[in-house]
């Protein structure tokens, strides 16, 4: 074989190479060439250089030799390749002048030929791209050429592509929309400068570790493949008019943006496009109707025919902002309101019940003092002998009687009672006024009560008007009635049912007031008897505590809030808070004295004691929690963070 330029006699001569590449060789000849290039580096190099010029790469190769670490490119020193794609290779590089790391993208420039913009124009276009300055656009520091290639020195973004970010972002629709909103801002900013991206897709958007979203590779698709404008771009994101040979413009960017957005929210890739039949535009993309209606409208319009798309990216973004926020904002607002409401209700509850307890406790603390004063007064009167003898004697006996009352089985009781009854009945006490008169009436009443037949209310009844009258002479001093009524239950020996409570008070029950009364347990009272008692004393009675625990509580440790008796006030049931008086364990045979507070309608509402109210409260809290959980799940908060970083 005579060869001209072949360095080695075994190497392929130009005739063989030309025939091989024209595809005319026989299988035997081709086999020989293959075998040769597998061992001969020079011929392999020759053939690879040839196919590089003869065969248009179909997108999977980078079209250039990978540059080793340390290669100088302008003032930059290349580090390693960090990515590669149809567009070219991206290297991390170091800029010694500014002592910083940059990313360098090397881009195959267009194969020169007819209808291709000259390199000067390409470079000018690249420089225009470099002048774009926007937080959502990757900053291009420098543009230049190396041999037949363009290079872009860009800010080095530590992070990931939007494709990865949106996959990792099962965090939801809101985060995705937030990311796309930011990317859209970058795109819109470029559009305002008249720069078309030409290949918008999730791979061309970077999400930095700082959360900032940056669009990259502006205009590169066209710079690279101007010779075949139809194939400039990534098929799946290409608008139908591009398939008909029309050039890229702002509206094809908008289309690509919408395809990417739809892909992101649906989590599915757009349908693959058959690149083999480029003359057939792909079918219109259908927007699934299960998406939020605003988003459906936004996407449908962005994916429609060019003249029906949004007038600009700005218009689209305005819509996107709206599609993203309203329902989320209102959801969040409702949740916050419900939480506030719940909080207010709880606070109100706590405040009101605290106030009632304070009142009851301070009243209860005053009781022993009042009882003491009462007996001191009696003693004083007895000792001083300042009053009529009859009175003195009656009071003296009555004073003794107090001791006797504690001893139900004392044999002397009967006699004492009879004696005091007589003296009190006959006592004429014209000079006694105010408290003294009350005191006397008190004793009279007691005497009558104590003379009454056990178990017979009828005989005890006459005492009640006397007591009531006396109480009326000392209005507002409800506590006195307690002392008075301590004795009353002794007459009621009918057993109550175990779980029944009888509240007896000498005064009409008024909502919103504290009063003393007796809660009787363990005695049975007939309905008729209760009615009689009520009529006679103006007392109100209540049966059945909602739970039995309340009755045993001690005033020193007030019953927990919400444990209330229900009281019948004018045919309605009123709720009552109460505390027991006296030391624990000191129960009279029939019941305990209680200081109670009858809730006014307002207080009852404020306390949330009713079941409806508690249910409402629980519902509010639950709903609010659920809404907040949804808001959190939606990634809206993360979006807010992202936005703060962006702006």
């Amino acid at each position: 074989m005579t060869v001209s330029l072949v360095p080695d006699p075994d190497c392929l001569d130009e005739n063989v190479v030309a025939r091989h590449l024209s595809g005319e060789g026989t299988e035997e000849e081709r086999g020989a060439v293959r075998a040769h290039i597998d061992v001969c580096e020079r011929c392999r190099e020759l053939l690879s250089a040839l196919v590089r010029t003869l065969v248009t790469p179909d997108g999977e190769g980078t079209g250039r030799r990978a540059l080793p670490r340390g290669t100088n490119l302008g003032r930059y020193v290349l580090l390693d390749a960090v990515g590669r794609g149809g567009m070219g290779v991206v290297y991390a590089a170091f800029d010694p002048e500014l002592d910083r790391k940059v990313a360098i993208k090397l881009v195959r420039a267009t194969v020169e030929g007819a209808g291709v913009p000259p390199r000067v124009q390409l470079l000018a276009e690249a420089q225009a791209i470099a002048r774009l300055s926007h937080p959502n656009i990757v900053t291009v520091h420098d543009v230049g050429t190396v041999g037949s290639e363009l290079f872009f020195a860009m800010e080095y973004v530590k992070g990931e592509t939007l494709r990865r970010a949106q996959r990792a972002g099962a965090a939801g629709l809101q985060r995705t929309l937030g990311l796309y909103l930011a990317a859209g801002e970058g795109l819109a900013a470029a559009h305002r400068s008249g720069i078309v991206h030409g290949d918008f897709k999730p791979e061309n958007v970077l999400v930095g570790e700082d959360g900032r979203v940056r669009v990259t590779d502006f205009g590169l698709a066209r710079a690279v493949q101007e010779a075949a404008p139809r194939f400039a771009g990534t098929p799946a994101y290409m608008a139908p008019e591009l398939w008909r040979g029309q050039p890229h413009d702002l509206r094809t960017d908008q289309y690509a943006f919408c395809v990417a957005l739809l892909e992101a929210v649906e989590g599915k890739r757009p349908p693959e496009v058959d690149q083999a039949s480029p003359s057939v535009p792909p079918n219109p993309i259908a927007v699934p109707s299960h998406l939020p209606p605003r988003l459906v409208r936004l996407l449908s319009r962005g994916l429609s025919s060019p003249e029906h798309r949004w007038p600009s990216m700005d218009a689209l973004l305005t819509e996107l902002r709206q599609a993203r926020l309203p329902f989320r904002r209102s959801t969040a607002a409702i949740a916050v309101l419900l939480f506030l409401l719940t909080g207010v209700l709880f606070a109100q509850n706590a405040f009101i019940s605290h106030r009632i307890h304070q009142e009851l406790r301070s009243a209860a603390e005053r009781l022993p003092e009042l009882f003491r004063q009462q007996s001191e007064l009696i003693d004083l009167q007895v000792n001083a002998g300042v009053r009529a003898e009859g009175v003195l004697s009656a009071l003296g006996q009555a004073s003794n009687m107090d001791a006797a009352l504690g001893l139900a089985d004392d044999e002397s009781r009967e006699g004492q009672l009879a004696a005091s009854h007589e003296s009190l009945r006959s006592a004429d006490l014209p000079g006694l006024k105010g408290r003294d008169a009350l005191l006397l009436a008190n004793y009279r009443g007691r005497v009558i009560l104590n003379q009454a037949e056990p178990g017979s209310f009828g005989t005890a009844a006459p005492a009640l008007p006397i007591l009531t009258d006396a109480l009326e002479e000392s209005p507002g001093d409800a506590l006195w009635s307690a002392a008075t009524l301590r004795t009353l239950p002794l007459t009621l020996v009918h057993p109550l049912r175990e779980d029944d409570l009888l509240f007896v008070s000498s005064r009409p029950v008024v909502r919103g007031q504290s009063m003393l009364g007796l809660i009787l347990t363990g005695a049975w009272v007939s309905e008729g008897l209760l009615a009689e008692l009520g009529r006679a004393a103006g007392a109100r009675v209540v049966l059945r505590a909602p739970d039995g625990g309340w009755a045993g509580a001690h005033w020193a440790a007030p019953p927990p809030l919400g444990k209330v008796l229900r009281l019948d006030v004018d045919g309605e049931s009123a709720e009552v808070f109460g505390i027991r008086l006296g030391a624990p364990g000191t129960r009279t045979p029939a019941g305990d004295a209680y200081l109670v507070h009858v809730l006014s309608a307002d207080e009852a509402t404020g306390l949330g004691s009713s079941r409806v109210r508690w249910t409402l409260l629980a519902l509010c809290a639950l709903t609010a929690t659920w809404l907040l959980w949804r808001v959190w799940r939606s990634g809206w908060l993360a979006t807010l963070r992202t936005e703060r970083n962006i702006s």
Partner: protein
Amino acid sequence: MSGFPHAEAFWAALGPTRLQNRPAIEARLEAQLAAARDRWPAVEIDGEAFAAHWAERLARTPDPEAAVEQLHVADLYLAFGCASGEVNALRAFAVQLAAAGAAVRGVDASPAFVDEVLQRLQTRVLVAEAGATPRILEYAGRGSLENWLRAGALRLALNARRDARRGPDPLPEVSQFEAAAPTGDLQFELMRGRYGADFGRALRQAFGELESQERNVLRLHFLEGLSLNQIGAMYQVNKSTISRRMARARETLLGRTRERLEEQLSIQPSELDSLLELLGPRLDLSLASVLNQST
């Protein structure tokens, strides 16, 4: 005169062959010659001498009968014209040479380099050395003249570049796979920090154990950046064949890398799995890095 005008010279130059049915062949020859003249109407050559040259080229093919149909007669015609110094042929040649220039630019785009390579190519193929014919007569008419020139131009360009590179290597020694640029993927960084060097070494070993064709295909794709269809054109096989071969090569490579790592590292199989899961998809970048160091 009808029929092939220089039949005698043709058959004489062809020598003894098994070619049958001379009239039919002569008719084909006549048509091909007419087509060549149509292509280059301004090129005037000595028909008889060309017929002899043509016959010689045919005689050198393994199957002259098939070659009658396959030969690029028009290109052969032009080459013959160039060799005889015909002015219009040389003009047409200049156009083809310019086309080869585009290929040279792929090696080095500086106009000076391209000019020099084309100049040398022109000299080498057109100017006869003492006692010899111009090398353009070696063009066999198999494959286009344009590709023949391209191949020659590229060979010269590659040789020139190789010569220029001989001497001190301007690039610093690189042996730090593990010092590669961070990617921002923390898990990946961690794995690479821990096993990057071992992975690089294992990968290099595994690559060395591949068959030469597998090695070449991977090298062409990942290092030279050729696309699959370009590699397909080099080997004259279908793109899908190359794609399959490449996938198999990758698989073998990863498998062997795994074996090496298992031998060399005391590492839990599960951790090895996640290491390969993480580094595997970036095999192309790793491989480019490894190949750049080993070549």
